């Protein structure tokens, strides 16, 4: 294709299930490209000599190269190139905010639409998973034991990279299933658990052992890990402790943290209650507090669990919403309402002690704050009430303090995040690295994967030189 034709060719739209159909079940919403769509989209890539998209990728995937292999219809080679850098491509192809990363840097995006890099990554990853991903790498075993704490995106990435280098890697996971937020948090309809399981299988095929039901800091200490012969430890326990607003009535029945709501649904499969025995309660009217990706996941889950009216309550305006535009759009298509510039101030119970309504106050936006967003301030006397049956508080998570507090010499900030001394994730404690949400606070899957990658490289350098 001539360069001009590439510039004018339209970006392939990924097919999605119709909103009215998809809100009746938990099956995946976005269906992925077929081969011809992938081929057409791949042809749009300009194959830049010094590609800026790669700079935008936290794990440094050689984007033009893998896309070029799609054009050549060499899909095996394409996924091999992706996996040189990314151990979880079917996951990141689905949940990465590409619009802020690789695709934001795509030259085509200056005048038109960028190449759909995420959709192409998902395409080659899914194609391989259909056949069953095999490890093509057979490194020489170093015999060096490395422990990873947490099996979310940071832990799995670091584990995969270290195993590829021949190290003997064990992941310790607190829950009964591995995957961290990919398993308990992100819903089936956005990230099917079969995909997560398949990618975890791939990491296991690289030689990684995963021990579930181990809460490091409680059931196993870091000193015991070292005494078991591990030479280095990577802490990747994420940000799993839910925040509440600390307003009156927040502990009433039928008020959930988003973490609890999503864990009951995704990990414990409450949407198949009572065959799966963990219950969940969703009334007719549901309010979701907050407007990040987790809030969108919770709102859309509530719809699928039978809610008739789901309303996202957010104190700023749509422009400031932290959720991906794509996720807000999906939620709107499915009928989620948005009550912006609104802040809950208290919850009012029914006579039986369940939440009955939420009292809110109107907000207005003032000057910019340090995050570049306009500061919301309450409008005096604008209080009003919204009748609700269920409330999901999705205002963010902080790191779970169990592990960090159990390690003497590990410097931890007030908010529970672990202090690192350099960009590789080295902590103030010898032989201990940390990365992902436990260091940055709540952030993205791909950011955590990037941190896992850097830590793995640093741990490898360390154990190889000592």
């Amino acid at each position, binding site marked *: 294709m001539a360069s001009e034709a590439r510039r004018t060719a339209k970006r392939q739209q990924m097919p999605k299930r119709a909103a009215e159909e998809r809100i009746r079940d938990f099956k995946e919403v976005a269906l992925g490209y077929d081969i011809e769509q992938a081929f057409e989209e791949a042809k749009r890539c300009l194959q830049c000599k010094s590609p800026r998209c790669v700079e935008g990728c936290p794990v440094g995937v050689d984007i033009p190269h893998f896309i070029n292999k799609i054009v050549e219809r060499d899909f095996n080679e394409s996924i091999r190139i992706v996996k040189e850098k990314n151990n979880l491509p079917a996951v990141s192809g689905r949940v990465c905010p590409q619009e802020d990363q690789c695709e934001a840097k795509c030259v085509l995006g200056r005048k038109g639409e960028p190449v759909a890099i995420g959709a192409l990554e998902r395409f080659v990853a899914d194609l391989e998973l259909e056949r069953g991903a095999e490890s093509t790498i057979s490194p020489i075993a170093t015999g060096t034991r490395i422990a990873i704490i947490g099996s979310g995106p940071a832990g799995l990435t670091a584990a995969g990279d270290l195993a590829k280098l021949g190290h003997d890697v064990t992941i310790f996971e607190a829950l009964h299933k591995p995957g961290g937020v990919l398993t308990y948090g992100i819903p089936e309809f956005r990230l099917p658990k079969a995909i997560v399981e398949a990618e975890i299988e791939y990491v296991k095929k690289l030689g990684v052992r995963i021990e579930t039901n181990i*809460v490091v800091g409680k*059931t196993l200490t870091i000193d015991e890990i070292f005494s078991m012969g591990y030479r280095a430890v990577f802490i990747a326990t994420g940000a799993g402790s839910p925040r509440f607003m600390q307003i009156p009535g927040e*502990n009433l029945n039928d008020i959930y943290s988003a973490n609890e709501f999503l864990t009951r649904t995704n990990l414990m499969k409450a949407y198949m209650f*009572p065959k799966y025995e963990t219950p969940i309660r969703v009334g007719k009217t549901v309010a979701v507090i907050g407007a990040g990706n987790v809030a969108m996941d919770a709102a859309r889950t509530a719809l699928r669990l039978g809610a008739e009216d789901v309303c996202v309550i957010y104190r700023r305006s749509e422009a400031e919403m932290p959720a991906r535009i794509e996720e807000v759009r999906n939620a709107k298509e499915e009928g989620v309402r948005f009550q912006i510039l609104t802040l809950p101030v208290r919850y009012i119970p029914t006579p039986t002690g369940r939440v009955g309504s939420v009292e809110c106050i109107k907000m207005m936006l003032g000057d910019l704050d340090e995050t570049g967003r306009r500061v919301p301030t309450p409008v005096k006397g604008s209080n009003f009430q919204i009748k609700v049956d269920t409330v999901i508080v999705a205002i963010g998570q902080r790191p779970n*303090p*169990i592990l960090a507090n159990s390690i003497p010499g590990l410097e931890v900030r007030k908010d529970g995040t672990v202090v690192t001394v350099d960009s590789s994730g080295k902590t103030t404690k010898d032989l201990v690295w940390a990365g992902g949400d436990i260091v940055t606070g709540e952030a993205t899957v791909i950011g955590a994967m990037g941190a896992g990658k850097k830590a793995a490289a640093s741990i490898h350098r360390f154990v190889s030189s000592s």
Partner: protein
Amino acid sequence: MHRIVAKKQLAPNIHMIEVEFPPRMVAKIRPGQFVMIRIDEYGERIPLTPAAIDEDKGSLTLIFQEVGRTTRRLGRLREGDLISDVVGPLGTPTEIKRFGTIAVVGGGIGTAFIYPEAKALKEAGNCVVSIIGARSGELLILKEEMKSVSDKFFITTDDGTVGRKGFVTQMLEEVIEMGEKLDLVIAAGPAIMMKSISDLTRRYGIKTIVSLNPIMVDGTGMCGSCRVIVGGETKFACVDGPSFDAHLVDFDHLLSRLKMYSEEEKLASQILEMGNQDGL
């Protein structure tokens, strides 16, 4: 996977199972801590307190009452069957030291929780006054075990079939009125019982520790299902507790939260009794 190496029915709907658990982790369990178990792919994660541990053998003894669908299915398992997941110890241990004279009060299944604490407190040199109670004599558990770690031992039943007729709270008041100088009261049992114990000891100004039993999911501080109000602050019982200063606990809130899923539990159990495993 964890094998059930022994099983015994202690009372109608109350069972004791001994489950395999790695010795290294058995060794870590302290009184006041609990484990989360999941019997299989379909089961809820439920918190249970080891009533006894055997480090040499590598096992935990768990006592549970059939209440919901998961515990009913657990009650149907036999020796040799496998439990999918056991994780622990979780929670903050109860402080064990020499306090002086301690009243240890167990109501119903709460006696299973209180027994390891009573034992440890006795070993720490305390004078242990135990009061255990149940609705009826056949529902009393761990009588001999409790007696063996107590300096004074009382039983109450609501119907008077065994021991004193009445509630553990009345017995405790009698003990106090008889002039027993208590330095501490430790209680576990139904929330309503812990509430009345707390009201009683507040009147007498005796420090009291209760072990709360809210609904949990992960048991590691991840979800907030088990949030309780203590001293006006929200606490997660799974990591901050489950033991708290009784006089600071908002029991009405706890009682309300315990009822959150009563409709769902009833439905799930009914379907199980009807023999429809799919529940559809």
